[in-house]
C-alpha cells in the first residue's frame, strides 16, 4: 500500500459555483502526476483544499493514510506536503539568500529563536546547496524584486523543497514564463525533484510540457475529474479533447 494522498468525495462550492464535485483521487508514492483543465476547472481549488488553505464543503483527505482535513497549511507542510504557487510567493524586499534562509529556519523549528542569528554557517550551506541544485546561485545576493520571473518560480519551488517534503504540489510552475523558457525551466524543476525523490503533482496548461514529464494525468472539468490515467489514454479521451485540450471535437462545437 503506497498511496500517499487520497481524496474521497471531495466537494467545494463558492455560492452557486461548484469548484469541486465528488473528487476521488489516489496518488501513489513516486508518481509524477499532471493536472490539466481549462480555467475554472477546479485545479487550484483542489490544491488549495489538499494543502489546507480551503476547507472542503464535504469529503475526506488522507495523507499517508491519516486524515488532514481541517488542519492548517503549516501543519500540513510540517507533515510533509509542500506546494508552490501560480504567482511565486516570495519575500520581495529581501535577498534571494534571505528568502531561502527563512525557509531553512522555518523548516528547522516551529518556534524561531529570539537571539541566535538566523545567518549561520549550516543554514547558509543548506541554502547555497539548493540554489546550486536549481542552478540559480548567481542570483544569491540579489533582491527578489530584481530577479526575472523564471528564476522567481524556481526560488518558489526551492523554498517548498527545503523542508524535504514527501509530496510537492506545483501550481502552474511555468505560468508567467515565456514559451522558449518553459522547457528549460521544467527540465530543471523535474531534475531536482527527481533527486529529492518527491511525489509530484503539477498543474499545467501546456500539453507538450505535460506529456514530457508525467506518468499519469488527471483531467478536471467544472470541478469533476473527467479522466484519470496514463497520458496517452487521457489525451486521446474524446471528452478530454472536447472540454480540456481543445481537440477536433472542440472545433466542431465552436463552429456550431
Amino acid at each position: 500500500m503506497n498511496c500517499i494522498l487520497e481524496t474521497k468525495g471531495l466537494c467545494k462550492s463558492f455560492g452557486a459555483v461548484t469548484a469541486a464535485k465528488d473528487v476521488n483521487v489516489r496518488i501513489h508514492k513516486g508518481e509524477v502526476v499532471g493536472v490539466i483543465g481549462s480555467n475554472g476547472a477546479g485545479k487550484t481549488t483542489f490544491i488549495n483544499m489538499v494543502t489546507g488553505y480551503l476547507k472542503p464543503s464535504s469529503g475526506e483527505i488522507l495523507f499517508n493514510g491519516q486524515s488532514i482535513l481541517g488542519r492548517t497549511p503549516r501543519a500540513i507542510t510540517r507533515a510533509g506536503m509542500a506546494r508552490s504557487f501560480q504567482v511565486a510567493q516570495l519575500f520581495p524586499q529581501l535577498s534571494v539568500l534571505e528568502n531561502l534562509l527563512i525557509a531553512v529556519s522555518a523548516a528547522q523549528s516551529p518556534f524561531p529563536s529570539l537571539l541566535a542569528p538566523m545567518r549561520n554557517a549550516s543554514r547558509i550551506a543548506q541554502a547555497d546547496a539548493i540554489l546550486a541544485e536549481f542552478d540559480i546561485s548567481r542570483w544569491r545576493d540579489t533582491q527578489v524584486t530584481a530577479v526575472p520571473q523564471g528564476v522567481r518560480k524556481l526560488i518558489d519551488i526551492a523554498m517548498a523543497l527545503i523542508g524535504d517534503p514527501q509530496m510537492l504540489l506545483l501550481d502552474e510552475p511555468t505560468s508567467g514564463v515565456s514559451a522558449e523558457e518553459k522547457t528549460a525551466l521544467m527540465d530543471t524543476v523535474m531534475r531536482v525533484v527527481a533527486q529529492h525523490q518527491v511525489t509530484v503533482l503539477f498543474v499545467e496548461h501546456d500539453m507538450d510540457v505535460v506529456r514530457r514529464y508525467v506518468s499519469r494525468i488527471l483531467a478536471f472539468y467544472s470541478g469533476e475529474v473527467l479522466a484519470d490515467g496514463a497520458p496517452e489514454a487521457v489525451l486521446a479521451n474524446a471528452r478530454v479533447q472536447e472540454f480540456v485540450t481543445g481537440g477536433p471535437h472542440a472545433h466542431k462545437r465552436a463552429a456550431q
Partner: protein
Amino acid sequence: MRLSKTELILLGVAVLLAAGGFIAPQWLVFLLTMALAKAMVVQGVVMQMRAGLVTFGQGLFFCVGGYAVGMSGHFLDITDLAVLLLIGVGAAVLLAMLLGLLMTRYREIFFAMLSLAFSMILYGVLVKSSALGSTDGFNVKAWTLFGWTPASGQAPLALFVIIVACSALLAVLLHRYSRSSAGMMCEAIRENEVRVEYLGQSPRWVLYMNYVAAAAVSALGGGFMALSAGHIDPEMAYWITSGEFVFIALLGGTAHVAAPFIAAILFAVVRTYAIELVPHSWQMILGFTLLAIIVFLPKGLWSLFTGQARRAKA
C-alpha cells in the same frame, strides 16, 4: 558572550554618553533621560513596524509601565528601582499576553485602530479613577537601588547613568533579535504572510511573541519615565502620546537599532527649541520636520548613515 562590531560601538557610545552626563548641565541630563525613556517605547513601535504593523496605541504599555511603577511605590511602599521596573515590565507582559490573543488576528488599519482603542480604554479608566488622581495623576516616590538612597540632587544623574546602561543592553539585545530567526520571520510576515504559513511557521505565533516583547520594552520606557519625571498621569495612554512614538519611529526609520535612540534625542531637542521659539505653535515646526523627513529621507534619519537616501533618489 561575543560582541560584534556594531555591539561594541553601541556600548562605546553608551559609555561616552554616561560619562558626558557628569559634565553636562542638569537640564540636558534630564532631557536625555526622558528621550531615552521614550526611545524605549519607540523601539516597541519599530519592532512591530518591522512586522508590517503600525500601532497607534503603544502608549498603553508606556502607561502600564509607568503606573505599575508609581502604584507599587504608592500602595506597596516598594522603592527599589530594579524591583519597580520589573513590576512595570511584568504587568505589561501579562496584559500583552492577554491582548495579544486578539491583536494578532488583525492587520493593517484594523490593528492600528484596535491598538488605539485599547490605549484609550485605559486612558478613560484612569481619568475616572479618583484614587489615582484622575486627570492629574499622582507623584512617584523617590527611588532607591539595592539599599542605596541617592542624595538629593544626585538622583537625576544616577538615573541617567542607569538608563544609559539599560539602553545599551537593550540595544544589544534588540540588535540580536532583529537578526535572529524570529526577527527575520517578522520581516517575512510583513512581506508575505501566506508564504510564511506554507513554510510551516505560524505567523500568529511570531506576531504574538513580537507583540509581547514590544510591550515589555515599551513598559520599561514607561517605568523610567515615571521615575525620572517623578509624576505620572493618564496622558501617557492618550492617543497623542502614542502618535508621538510613531512620529519618532518614522523620524529614525527601522533600519537600525540605534535609529530610535537618535531620533528620540533629536525629537526632544527640536521640541525644546521649537517651544522656546514659537511657544504657541511649536507643533508646526515638528510637522514641517516630519514632512521634510518623509519627502527627503523616506527611510528615516538612519539613511543618512547608509547613503540609501541618495541611492533611492537616483
